[in-house]
Structures are given as structure tokens and as C-alpha cells.
């Protein structure tokens, strides 16, 4: 794998991680990843 391709993959992973983080904070997917507190 060329350095350019590798860097693009790393960049895509970082961008995807940041996008998922923002979406989670916006409330998307919270039902899947969290559960109610124990009562």
C-alpha cells in the first residue's frame, strides 16, 4: 500500500470517528448505544 493511500485511509478513519462523535452528541444512535439507568 502506498503512503498516499495509507494516509487517506487514516484520514478517513479520523473523519469518520469525528462524524460519529458529533452524530452521537446530536442524539443519533443513543438508543442503540445506551440503556436507562438502573432503578
Amino acid at each position, binding site marked *: 500500500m502506498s503512503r498516499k493511500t*495509507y494516509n487517506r485511509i487514516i484520514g478517513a478513519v479520523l473523519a469518520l470517528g469525528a462524524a460519529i462523535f458529533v452524530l452521537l452528541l446530536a442524539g443519533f444512535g443513543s438508543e442503540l448505544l445506551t440503556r436507562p439507568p438502573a432503578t
Partner: protein
Amino acid sequence: MTALAPSRPQASGRGRLIVALLLGALVAVSLGVYGNVHDPTGRSLVTLFFTATINLKVWLATLAVGLAILQVLTAAKFYGRLGGGHGPPWLGRLHRASGSLAFLATIPVAYHCLWALGFQAAETRVLAHGLLGCAFFGAIAAKVLLVRSRGLPGWALPLAGGTVFTALVGVWLTSSLWYFTTVKFPGF
């Protein structure tokens, strides 16, 4: 005209440095504001194979710190500050992969902190943890922008990386280490 040409990359580099710092500051402040204004849900994260959310979080944070230490060592090596030479050619790839993995490991932790717990200032440790957490994500945003920039001062990238590392270690000290030393270890 030719006399001015060499200064252009430096001026451009300074501009990129300022933009990256401003964007990093914006990210840090935005997360802090979000944590403060968002109503904490109190919900737990899915715990995978851990017994509780807190256990998942302290170990993901510990993984991130371990990878961050690898980041510092690999960077020190290819900057020629660790032993002789600049290390093997694959060191840069290892540095980038470990950094990305460390960042991914922090996402569920920060998500739970911000979404479920919110920004808290009742205790000094918790306040410091929240501030350092926001600083960490601001610093990492600035560092990712800087790492692809040209014409930066030589100190810019090491300083950005050092800031990311320092913030992350601070986050870990005020959370995982506190948990390990005062609540439970290893606490899976």
C-alpha cells in the same frame, strides 16, 4: 518579487497555525458548552464484556493513554530524539495508526461523559477532568489540521502533539487512575 518568495510559505504556515489553533479552541469550547447546556441523560453505555460502564470507560481511557505513550515514543524516534537515527520507514505508519486508534478509543468515553453526565464542577478533580477532556479534543483537532500543513515552524507539530498527550494524560489521571486507586483495580 523573488526576494519575497521565501517568506510566503512561512507566512502561509503561520496563517495555518493560527487557523488550526482557533479551530481547536472552537472545538474545546463547543464541547464544554455542550456538556454544560445539555441535560445529562444519566444513561449507561453498552458495556461489551465489562461489568459496568465505568469499567469500560476507565479501560478504554487506559488503552488510549498506552497508545499515546507509543505515539510519543515513535515521534521522538523519527524526530531523532530517541537513540541514534530516525527509525525504520514503517515508524510513521505505526505513529498514525496508533494515534487514530487512540482517538477512536476516546470517543465512547467522551460521548458518555458529555451525553450522560454533562459538565460538572462540584469537585476539583471532576472539574479538571472536564476541562482537560475538552482541551484534549481541541488539541487533537488542531494537531490533525497541523499535521497536513506545510511551512509551519519546526516547533509547531511537536508542541501540538505534546499538548494532546498532556491533556490525555491529565484526563486519565483524573479518571482512570483515580478509579484504580480509590475504587477498584483492575475492575473489569
